[in-house]
């Protein structure tokens, strides 16, 4: 059953909220010019997670106070990154429900409730990371692998398209990305031996426009990188939202681990296009280029991190670049036109590679693969960073990444595929006596060298936001949400939210006041300067 709950009578908020406006492709393309809104998953097509607002600064950050809290009725983990358009916040909830909130008060305006199909399955709970908006519709992917279009003013369903069979382990956890007339969506299920893809749907009708398979069919280029018939269960899922360059009409999207995760014996080869960044034509889905970060991955180090588009001068030459902080602990700068590797270096503790060669390929240290007895390797399965977003501040010219310093003992196990069942081929054990640690790090984007770090007492599982007020906002798994000086990393303000933070911060303006919002536990916290 899917239903929408109307929670206010028409016109109740007309005095303070403008009518929900059309969020056109033109507005999405120029979202940097309207920082009062947060129109895409990462705040802009360039995915910099940077806010041009500067009302909150290093001088007044200590005056930040909760403006409101919205509590979801869920025990699932909340990873949502809200969108804000014209005074209304659109929040996805676990499973694929959506709530529209008044940003002045946090009070719900409407709610779409998704009841997930029985038998749906996923590795890591019914998480959902957000929605997309385009014109007069809100789009959400669901845990039972549907893409749903909702009326932006009421939450009523306009169309509902099945993307894949949830009983085989397909699910959607990523926020969709709206282009001119299409909605791009990735999928999850990398622990179930599915075949990964990236889809685009016609925004008005819900008809599928194109599909890019991230694991090639027999005979297609790249199929030779899978021994035997292993490509059939190759995974390479696409569960984090990518970036878009309207000028190139290129979609940039990260892909996940090959299946099975930890036993590579049954899939000899580089396993394309797992653990890659792919550049696709926005109209056709055709592959323009790819770059594989971790060939033949045996540690489950998905490259489903957010690609950040920015200009970078590398060795004296200016490039339209992609900046990428990878779960395998290496930071990369790629040329956006060609996918060519420009530079890279580790940003967190790692023991699996001596470094990167001139083409950006890792020089793997022998004996770092999982074994039946267990092999101690840094980073652990969760990686040096993960799906949670990095940020690039064009003002500070720094790349910020939430970092983990955690190792583990990797184990190789059985790898027998059964449709709809977990297909891992091993596992990991924590290193006894070692507490997980982490840091927020600022990297010089052209080189990856560390400018500063702010050490956490725990590991990181939340994204980073930078602002024109020269601030960096971040959170941690012990519930602290905090502001750092963007140039020095010095702490300026913190608030204990009372639950682990597994989400990305956003910033926007409501009633003339800048707000910063973050999901923590089952709640959305919005902060603003006290009056």
């Amino acid at each position, binding site marked *: 059953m899917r239903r929408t709950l109307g929670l206010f009578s028409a016109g109740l908020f007309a005095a303070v909220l403008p009518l929900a406006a059309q969020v056109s492709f033109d507005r999405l393309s120029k979202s940097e010019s309207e920082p009062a809104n947060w129109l895409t998953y990462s705040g802009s097509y360039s995915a910099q997670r940077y806010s041009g607002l500067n009302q909150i600064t290093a001088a007044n950050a200590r005056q930040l106070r909760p403006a409101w809290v919205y509590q979801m009725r869920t025990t699932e983990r909340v990873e949502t990154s809200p969108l804000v358009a014209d005074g209304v916040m659109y929040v996805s909830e676990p499973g694929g429900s959506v709530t529209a909130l008044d940003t002045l008060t946090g009070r719900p305006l409407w709610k779409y409730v998704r009841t997930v199909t029985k038998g749906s399955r996923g590795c890591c709970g019914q998480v959902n990371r957000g929605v997309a908006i385009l014109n007069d519709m809100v789009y959400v992917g669901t845990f039972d692998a549907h893409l749903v279009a909702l009326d932006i003013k009421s939450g009523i369903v306009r169309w509902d398209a099945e993307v894949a069979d949830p009983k085989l382990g397909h699910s959607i956890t990523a926020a969709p990305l709206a282009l001119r007339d299409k909605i791009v969506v990735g999928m999850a299920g990398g622990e179930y031996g599915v075949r990964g893809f990236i889809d685009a749907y016609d925004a008005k009708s819900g008809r599928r426009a194109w599909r890019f398979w991230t694991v090639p069919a027999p005979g297609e280029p790249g199929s030779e990188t899978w021994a035997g018939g292993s490509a059939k269960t190759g995974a390479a899922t696409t569960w984090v939202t990518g970036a878009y360059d309207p000028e190139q009409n290129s979609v940039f999207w990260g892909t996940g681990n090959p299946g099975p995760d930890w036993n590579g014996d049954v899939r000899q080869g580089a396993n394309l296009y797992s653990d890659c960044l792919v550049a696709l034509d926005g109209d056709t889905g055709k592959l323009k280029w790819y770059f594989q970060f971790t060939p033949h991955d045996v540690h489950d180090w998905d490259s489903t991190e957010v690609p950040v588009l920015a200009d970078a001068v590398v060795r004296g030459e200016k490039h339209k670049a992609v900046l990428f902080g990878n779960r395998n602990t290496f930071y990369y700068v790629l040329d956006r036109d060609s996918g060519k590797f420009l530079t890279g270096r580790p940003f967190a503790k790692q023991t699996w590679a001596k470094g990167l060669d001139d083409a950006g390929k890792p020089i793997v240290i022998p004996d770092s693969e999982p074994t039946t007895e*267990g092999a101690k390797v840094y980073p652990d*399965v969760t990686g040096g960073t993960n799906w949670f977003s990095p940020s690039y501040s064009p003002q500070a010219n720094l790349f910020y990444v939430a970092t983990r310093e955690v190792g583990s*003992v990797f184990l190789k*196990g059985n790898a027998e595929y059964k449709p709809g*069942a977990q297909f*891992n081929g091993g596992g990991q*054990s924590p290193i*006894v006596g070692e507490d997980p640690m982490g840091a927020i790090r600022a990297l010089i984007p052209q080189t990856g060298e560390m400018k500063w770090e702010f050490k956490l007492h725990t590991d990181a599982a939340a994204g980073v936001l930078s602002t024109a007020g020269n601030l960096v906002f971040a959170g941690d798994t012990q519930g602290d949400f905090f502001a750092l000086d963007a140039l020095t990393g010095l702490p300026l303000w*913190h608030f*204990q939210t009372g639950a682990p933070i597994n989400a990305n911060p956003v910033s926007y303006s409501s009633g003339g006041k800048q707000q910063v919002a973050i999901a923590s536990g089952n709640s959305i916290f919005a902060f603003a300067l006290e009056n």
Partner: protein
Amino acid sequence: MRLVCLIFSFALLAPAQEVPFDPEYVIPKVNPHTSPADLKNGQQLFMGQCSRCHGSKGEGGSGAVLAQPRLQHAPDDQSLFLVILEGIKGTEMPGGYAIDTRETWQLAAYVRSLGRLAPETVPGDPTRGRELYQAKGHCGQCHIVGGQGGSLGPELTDIGSRRSAAHLRAAVVDPSSALPNGFLQVRLETKDGRRITGVRLNEDTFTIQVRDLTGGIHSFVKEDLKALERDAGKSPMPSFQAALSASEMDDLVAYLVSLRGEK
């Protein structure tokens, strides 16, 4: 064990260790995978994933003793399957992330086989050990057994089912060699000159909460501290090696081994 629960509550909510499980799977009452081949694979899994805490023969260590006929949290096959799959909330026992249903049963079969091994022989008289625990060791000042005692140290009500005799002997002779998780000793000094030694109750990036050696609870913002030392590997508990004769030590260990959870 409230201290442990408090300290580990966030860790248990962390995202990395989700439990994979087919919600439609009906758990059989009796383990369906107990062949010699299943036991062999279960042993391999056990050595890789369990032996670090439970010992290679299930003799215990930082994890519970498994070489016993009855497991407190897993009296039957179904409950053992669930313990392996989901872990035990409020303890250090994690869920079996990334092992499939058959492997879980194979692991369960191997764990059950450990319980058929001969139990550990412990010298000493537990009745005399109980008297030493109360009168000479004054252990009850810091430990609770059956609802009685102080709460600075870990509860010992069922310590005999969770720790081996060798581990318990080490904990009495050299407490720092057998530290339980969640009992980190810290020493701190505030900017206004106060000095406090105690057990860390909780700590995040910006604050720390401490129970001092008299039981008083303190909370500090770290920027208000002049010094903060974490004494990893040290215990506030004194050694009892010099205080007890060899036979008294045997008696005390025998008493601790006899504590199996009866309140």
